């Protein structure tokens, strides 16, 4: 409701009355003109009565503004019964004096016109009804029934004109409903649209056997308003209008990152995973593991204790849980813990708008932080490519506003031009993962790569995406001389390399041993040479000692001889002499 706050200006602007109807207050930028009549016109069964009764009921219940419902068609009881399915308890509101239903019965066959008359009776009646409960809102459904009940058209036209003026003077916010006339005229009488300050046209179209209700504001005096056709739908909570073009591209963004649950994938996305509030598309051909990636993401979200809604468009929740159990992802416990909510609907079940509103409502109710839609491809069955794209734009827009991270999966039907896919949302999403088949060497393997990831450094490599009993993993593909190898070819190549390594290692160790042996031999040689040297040395020493000894003995002998020659005592035997 930022619009209302923004409209602060120096001049008094048109006061508006909130309808309380989802979305209508946004496209009217604040509701219907207060104290003025609004015409709601459309063909039979387009929701005029419902919209007007919701206006009254919401006024009574949400804004404490009592309202009068003047029914020209349905009786009070019928009306109460018709809207009971929407949870509107008219009886209770009537008892609380917040609502007054006045059934105006008019039957031409019962009335004789005997001269000049006017509708003063109706005025008095309305005035009494308004005053009795202090009504701020009034609905006249359908005023033109007067024309079928009374003959004097000129009087009626004059009186209806007077009625509009009178309603304004009463200061009640009024809704007048009118059947769409023939051709281009909005009402049968071509009168109400000129005297109303606001005209809303309801429309109910069936395209491709799927009906879509639409709403358009044709005129709104004195204010700006959305001029487009807005789809709306009627469900158990009443009317929900969807503003298509609320795209303002001025959203809050988060720098928080969310793990994908697959460490190797986080690694490819700058090491951290997706941005919170971002949108991701996982596209790929059939059987490439898109659902598995989504389930991992859902599992990771729930493991963090956050809520996740899984919109399953193809498989039933039980089926998904069984299948994911086979790769080691147990989702049942998150469902039991109330963190994970599966919403399984066939896209064909209802129109795109209905889907969108159903999604909106569920998200508003469950308040998840992550939403998964698996897959979006089947929406194409219920709408054209541009309609689907339009719907997804609005969905992404809404989710970003709500700070919800979303992951779509999309099936690419064309295996050759993988980039041409996904209902044109690839340009809208923040990151795009592509899972593709790599067919090589008689087998099919999965390759995953990051096509784009806004605002983060991401890997430019193709990784082999392996689904096993242990779960998902991404493996570096083998880049060999023959190009990219995956699967068994990669394994084979790796084995081949391992063999080469083993042989290499082996030869190295043999050389080592040879060196060791040579060393031993040399060491032995050194040892023997050493001992040889020692023996030679010893020999040399022995000779030397002997020489020394001999020399000593000779010396001794000579001294002895010398002493003997000198004749010094013969204590010793003469030993030689000169």
């Amino acid at each position: 409701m930022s619009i209302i706050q923004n409209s602060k200006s120096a001049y008094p602007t048109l006061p508006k009355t909130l309808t309380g109807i989802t979305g209508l207050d946004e496209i009217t930028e604040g509701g219907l003109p207060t104290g003025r009549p609004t015409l709601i016109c459309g063909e039979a069964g387009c929701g005029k009565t419902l919209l007007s009764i919701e206006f009254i009921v919401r006024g009574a219940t949400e804004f404490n503004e009592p309202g009068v419902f003047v029914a020209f068609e349905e009786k009070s009881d019928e009306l109460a019964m018709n809207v009971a399915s929407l949870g509107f308890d008219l009886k209770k509101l009537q008892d609380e004096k917040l609502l007054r239903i006045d059934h105006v019965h008019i039957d031409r066959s019962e009335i004789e016109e005997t001269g000049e008359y006017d509708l003063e009776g109706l005025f008095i009646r309305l005035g009494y009804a308004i005053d009795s409960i202090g009504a701020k809102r009034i609905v006249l459904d359908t005023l033109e029934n007067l024309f079928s009940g009374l003959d004097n058209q000129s009087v009626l036209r004059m009186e209806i004109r007077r009625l509009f003026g009178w309603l304004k003077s009463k200061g009640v916010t009024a809704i007048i409903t009118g059947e769409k006339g023939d051709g281009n005229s909005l009402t049968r009488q071509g009168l109400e649209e000129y005297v109303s300050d606001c005209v809303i046209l309801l429309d109910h179209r069936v395209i491709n056997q799927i009906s879509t209700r639409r709403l358009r504001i044709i005129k709104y005096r004195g204010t700006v308003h959305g001029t487009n056709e807005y789809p709306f739908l009627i469900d158990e909570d009443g009317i929900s209008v969807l503003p298509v073009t609320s795209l303002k591209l001025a959203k809050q963004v988060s720098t928080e990152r969310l793990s994908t649950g697959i460490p190797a994938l986080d690694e490819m996305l700058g090491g951290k995973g997706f941005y919170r509030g971002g949108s991701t598309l996982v596209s790929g051909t059939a059987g490439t593991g898109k659902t598995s990636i989504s389930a991992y993401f859902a599992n990771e979200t729930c493991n963090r204790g956050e809520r996740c809604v899984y919109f399953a468009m193809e498989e039933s929740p039980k089926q998904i849980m069984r299948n994911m159990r086979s790769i080691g992802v147990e989702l049942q416990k998150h469902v039991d813990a109330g963190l994970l909510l599966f919403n399984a609907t066939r896209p064909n079940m209802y129109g795109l708008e209905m889907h969108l509103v159903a999604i909106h409502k569920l998200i508003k109710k469950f308040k998840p932080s992550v939403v998964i839609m698996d897959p979006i491809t089947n929406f194409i069955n219920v709408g054209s490519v541009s309609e689907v794209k339009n719907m997804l734009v609005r969905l992404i827009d809404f989710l970003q506003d709500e700070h919800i991270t979303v992951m779509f999966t999309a099936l690419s039907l064309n295996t050759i031009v993988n980039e041409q896919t996904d209902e044109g949302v690839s340009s809208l999403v923040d990151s795009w993962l592509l899972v593709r088949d790599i067919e090589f060497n008689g087998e099919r393997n999965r390759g995953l790569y990051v096509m784009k990831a806004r605002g983060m450094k991401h890997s430019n490599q193709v990784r082999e995406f392996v689904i096993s009993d242990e779960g998902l993993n991404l493996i570096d593909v083998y880049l060999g001389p023959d190009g990219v190898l995956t699967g068994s070819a990669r394994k084979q190549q790796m084995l081949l390399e391992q063999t080469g390594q083993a042989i290499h290692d082996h030869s190295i160790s043999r050389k080592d041993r040879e060196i060791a042996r040579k060393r031993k031999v040399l060491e032995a040689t050194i040892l023997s040479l050493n001992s040889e040297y020692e023996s030679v040395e010893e020999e040399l020493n022995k000779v030397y000692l002997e020489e020394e000894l001999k020399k000593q003995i000779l010396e001794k002998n000579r001294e002895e001889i010398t002493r003997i020659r000198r004749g010094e005592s013969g204590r010793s035997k003469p030993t030689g002499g000169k």
Partner: protein
Amino acid sequence: MADKDIEFTDYEGNEEPTAYVLRLFITGASPNSIRAVENLNALCEKYIPGQYDLKIIDIHQQPELAEDEDIIALPLLIKKAPGKERRMIGDMSNTNKVLKGLGLPEIN
């Protein structure tokens, strides 16, 4: 219309002086209201003298009656009896239509 009269006569055995129960709803002193009162009084005195019970109700004074009597257009004359309830709107200037509404033979 004649049938109804006969039926009525047969039922009561003779003509009841207050057979016609008439309620005229008007809004204050609007020209239509005044004309309606004048026209109706004259008509009743002329065609059903002494046989009617006419009450004139100003709806402004009793607005709650508007819903009860399902009033839209005014002036409104409701013939409560005899026979089926009939409603006549307007200023009662078309005497033939009023007579038709009252179940009386039309004059030429």
